[in-house]
């Protein structure tokens, strides 16, 4: 048999080109206002949480209990990667307890629904800066549904478009 002297990774390259797309990573964020408080509903794939090393167990199968046990790491991640700013001042974001979390299947993928409240001290000029999950895959995008500050809009945030509304000079 004709074999090779070079390393095992040569196997990778004896294939036709990738004529197909790998799965795209999509998260959803609904931002609305209720009783004068800004509320966020963040829908994120469990697969993406695992890719970002946010789940306490790094196994292929994960239970709901293990997901909710990762509250601290997920809360810390959201706090550092999802920012609402009000005239340059960050709003305080609070991820609600894991008992409020839910699961929804979107496109055959299980998603966790995370509820977050934002305290922007009643300042009406709010801007979102979203930086989550871009580092774990170039194709991550956020489908944003925005319904605050008398502005109702949908937007797609991506690695090169992370701010909404994007006020340009």
């Amino acid at each position: 048999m004709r074999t090779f002297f070079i390393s095992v990774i040569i196997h990778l390259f004896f294939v036709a080109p990738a004529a197909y797309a790998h799965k795209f990573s999509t998260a959803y964020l609904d931002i609305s206002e209720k009783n004068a408080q800004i509320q966020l509903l963040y829908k994120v794939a469990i697969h993406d949480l695992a890719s970002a090393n946010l789940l306490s167990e790094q196994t292929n199968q994960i239970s709901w209990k293990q997901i909710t046990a990762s509250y601290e790491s997920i809360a810390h991640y959201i706090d550092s990667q999802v920012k609402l700013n009000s005239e340059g001042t960050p709003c305080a974001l609070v991820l609600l307890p894991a008992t409020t979390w839910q699961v929804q299947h979107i496109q055959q993928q299980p998603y966790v629904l995370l509820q977050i409240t934002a305290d922007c001290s009643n300042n009406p000029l709010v801007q979102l800066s979203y930086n989550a999950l871009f580092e774990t895959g170039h194709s991550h995008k956020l489908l944003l549904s925005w319904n605050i500050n008398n502005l109702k809009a949908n937007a797609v945030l991506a690695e090169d478009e992370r701010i909404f509304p994007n006020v340009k000079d």
Partner: protein
Amino acid sequence: MFSLMYLLLFLTQPVAVDNTKLVNDEVVFTLKPELPTNQEIDTLLEIMRTNPTNNVRLRLASLYIQGSKLPGFGDWFHYAESLLMQYVPSDTTSIDYLLLLSDIKQQQHHFSESLHLLDQVFQAQPQHIQASLIAARIHLAMHNTDLAQKSCQRLLSQDIFLFSVCTYEVLGRKGEWQTAYEALYALHAKYYELEPALDIWIKGILSEQAEQLGHIRTAIEWLKPVLDKAPASLWLKWADLNLDISEADIVYETLSNLKVVESLEDSLLLRLAIAERDLKRGEHYQTIIHDRMRLRVIRQDTDHAADLAHYFLRLKYDPKLALYWAKINYQSAKEPDDKKLLVLSEQALLAMKSE
């Protein structure tokens, strides 16, 4: 348009999911299909837990990428990407690291970035075999046949067999299909016991050349014996060849019986949905692919736009949109299939306008 489509995403019919189950009264989610060759991965994962090093990351990423090329296992690509991001570059950045990253970039059709990484390999080892093969592959994808031939040339002093295969593939892409096919056929016949990955690679080229010569059934025959271990791109070719000769039955039976059918890549799921429609076997896979394609349109993804062009050409017929996406696709990928897709989309639009 956007709000309406956004809404539609959540109003579609629910379809079965097999990634959630009850274990001891507790809901358990499966994150990705288990790779077939898992023992080595398990060992490396164990080492990663206790002593993560660059070397282990590379070995693991290499296995993940290898696995991700099989149909239905594409999720592993993202885990490989994630691992490579944890790689700590040093002054002597590993050639394996550059090759893996380059392969990831070429799979994403980020060809310039991929070639730039390969240049770094060539600076250290001008005749590096794997780097030369990837470079040839990228130049072919961009239809730069002269540059592809130059990449093949680097192999001449290293491995005459690889140099020959590489050259015959380029010769075919230059339009000399008959000469290239006969030469590669003869070479392959001489080496009847090839290492499996090499055999798959060559049979993939022979299949393309047979197709270009109009021998569709021969093209299918080249792929049949290696299909089980072949990457998703060859499965895609196999499915299209069969659909071209109205063999939807074999496509439907084979793809729908895969264990990983629910996690099939969009391109393969689209072929399954086309077969399902042709055979009038319900609308299960069509429902799933409609949802996935709606999302792709909303996201305005331009990577691998061929999927959308095929979708609007062959399932949800809209020649205008098919041509729109085929043109986007052709900006980055210029393989024979990309050219064919562009021409068919143009013809479909012309036919629609003349009606």
